[in-house]
């Protein structure tokens, strides 16, 4: 069984929480005591039915205000798949939360209110999904019950969205007409839309192909920890522990250590008492090499045949996540995998108006601003382009005064 991680994007009134609630409720993923708490809650729909939205609002302030403040993670499982939902808020002031949720997802559900069609927020959400490189998108046209389940209206929205998708560069889109409130096409096929022949949302989520970021041919393993028991019987043991982020590693493979450039051969790939002949992307392993070379945390092991980018000058998309604006005269820290080094934003190339998608001159980068920059790092980064591999192409910026994560970087080009 596999895990599908997805994010839901929609504005406050599009029924995002109701959609998640409906998904959990109709797939019978809500337990009796949780259901009881739900039924005893004072929040009810107009017709007296349970308000499924409260299932997802976990914090007091959220229940008080009826809005979602931060990303919450929800888990459910069917016979076919396990699901992790990153439930991110839709408000513009929470763009950073949506970026956070999207960074770990394989699929995005973009909600559109059938009455309103494609609106400014749809543009913003679609742009973010494209920027973060989610391989699969579902456009859920919600509240179909409020437009008499009109096929024409649905087709009109699909047409509008196709234009938007072309503009932001999204592909692999599936369109589903739904009513989260009434339960049409969420888990069960709708009786009210016999013109729709596609899958229900859950059916689609259970069967859609999950593209794993392993489509880069070279093996890429950031070293997190050097295992050195230093006991009498294991005096010379040196294991390099890390998670393989792309490709696969085999015993007897030639490997290069970057950025130093030393080469060696894989002698053992192991984990506790298990030995691997070959280990693929996603696995955490410990690697031992034939030669005793200097490797420490933050170094990258790659297969010798193919190499990632190595540079101190990188063009990247930046999403600013802090209330303090970006200061180009300041030295920040950049964290990329297990490597932390100093960095400066050398140049702001442009900012994107995420409501109109227009490029603007960027003097200042404030909270939730997104644009293209050139970053200069103190030590070279060993990376893949974000579009090729999210896990080796993403980085964060840390403000060394507060230690807070203030920016997300998607590394787009070697600017050397």
């Amino acid at each position, binding site marked *: *069984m*596999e*895990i599908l991680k997805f994010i839901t994007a929609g504005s406050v009134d599009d029924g995002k929480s109701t959609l998640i609630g409906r998904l959990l409720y109709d797939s019978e993923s809500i*337990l*009796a*005591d949780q259901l009881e708490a739900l039924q005893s809650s004072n929040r009810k729909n107009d017709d007296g039915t349970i308000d499924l939205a409260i299932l997802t609002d*976990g*914090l*007091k302030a959220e229940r008080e205000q009826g809005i979602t*403040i931060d*990303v*919450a*993670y*929800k*888990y459910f*499982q069917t016979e076919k798949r*396990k699901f*992790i939902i990153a439930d991110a808020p839709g408000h513009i002031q929470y763009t950073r939360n949506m*970026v*956070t949720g999207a*960074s*770990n997802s394989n699929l995005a559900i973009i909600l559109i209110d059938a009455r309103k069609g494609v609106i400014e927020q749809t543009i913003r959400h679609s742009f973010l999904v494209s920027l973060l490189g989610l391989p699969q998108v579902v456009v859920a046209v919600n509240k179909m019950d409020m437009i008499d389940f009109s096929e024409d209206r649905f087709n009109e929205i699909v047409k509008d969205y196709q234009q938007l998708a072309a503009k932001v560069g999204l592909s692999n889109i599936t369109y589903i007409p739904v009513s989260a409130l009434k339960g049409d096409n969420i888990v069960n096929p709708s009786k009210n839309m016999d013109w729709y022949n596609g899958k229900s949302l859950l059916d689609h989520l259970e069967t859609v192909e*999950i593209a*794993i970021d*392993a*489509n880069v*041919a070279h093996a890429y393993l950031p070293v*997190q*920890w050097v*295992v*050195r*028991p230093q006991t009498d019987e*294991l005096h010379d*043991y040196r294991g390099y*522990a*890390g*998670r393989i*982020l792309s490709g*696969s590693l085999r015993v007897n493979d030639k490997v290069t250590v970057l950025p130093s450039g030393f080469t060696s051969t894989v002698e053992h790939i192991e*984990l*506790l008492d298990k030995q691997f002949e070959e280990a*693929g992307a*996603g*696995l*955490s392993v410990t690697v031992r090499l034939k030669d005793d070379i200097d490797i420490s945390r933050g170094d990258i092991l790659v297969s010798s045949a193919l190499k990632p980018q190595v540079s101190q000058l990188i063009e990247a998309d930046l999403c600013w996540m802090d209330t303090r604006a970006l200061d180009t005269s300041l030295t920040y*820290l950049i*964290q*990329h*995998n*297990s490597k932390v080094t100093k960095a400066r934003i050398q140049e702001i190339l442009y900012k994107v108006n995420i409501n109109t998608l227009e490029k603007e001159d960027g003097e200042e980068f404030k909270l939730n601003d997104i644009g293209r920059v050139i970053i200069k790092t103190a030590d070279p980064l060993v990376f893949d382009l974000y579009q090729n591999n*999210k*896990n080796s192409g*993403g*980085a*964060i910026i*840390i403000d060394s005064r507060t*230690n*807070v*994560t203030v920016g*997300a970087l998607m590394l787009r080009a070697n600017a050397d």
Partner: protein
Amino acid sequence: MSKYNLDYLDELEAEAIYILREVAGQFEKPALLFSGGKDSITLVHLAQKAFRPGKFPFPLVHIDTGHNFQETIDYRDDMIKRIGEKLIVGYVQDDIDNGNVVEQKGKNASRNALQTVTLLNTIAKHQFDACIGGARRDEEKARAKERIFSVRDEFGQWDPKRQRPELWNIFNGKINKGENVRVFPISNWTELDVWNYIRRENIPLPTIYFAHQRDCITRNGQLMAASEFLNMDSEDVVENRNVRFRTVGDMTCTAAVESYAFEIDDIINEISASKISERGARMDDKVSEAAMEDRKKGGYF
């Protein structure tokens, strides 16, 4: 070009090991909080995968309420001997004796709330900068909001509105003096995932997880183990029941469930069919709708 689609247990395991190694790499004085429950037992197993044949780069820390199930303490001591790692115990009794906390009174008195003080004192005494715990996001709705690296202020408090964004596989462990990070490597696991993993990996567990005969009383609709720690009176009727425990905590706040699950397969079947959440058997969560959120803000796990 080959594709690797990992089975969900492999993926969860690889992620947890990755997180444990990030803790080792980023912090000066980490600790692994061990309660004797299945989640922290799973963490110890994962730590062996992360660091063997080396030693753990952190000690295990147990906050002992003094109201533990004896089976848990026996398991803990056997396990420490078996894995050869260091154990530090913080005693709630010590904080009661020196007046740092006052024991609750009344029929439903529990030492559960007092643990927070002992935990924070133990962290301060040993200057731990990161504490690894076995909490999962599926347990409770406030937990569902928590980051994997969760920064706590110098009073141990969690502020849900000031959480750091957590992107991709990058965990920012940089903290200011006095702050502390709680790390949850199995955030993305569900109760059933933990059980399936324990079965797959053959991890031994304390006997109280399996069905056994025990003297119990019924209180507030829950089955509680009859013990000297529970304030019992003439109204309490002691009955011998066939029970097991779904979570392991303080004897005064952990309820048993009627069960005939003697083997791990039985437990997995039982949980799969159960319509009550795991936390449904924790009295401490039932105090109010925001009970867990409030305790976490105060420095609880």
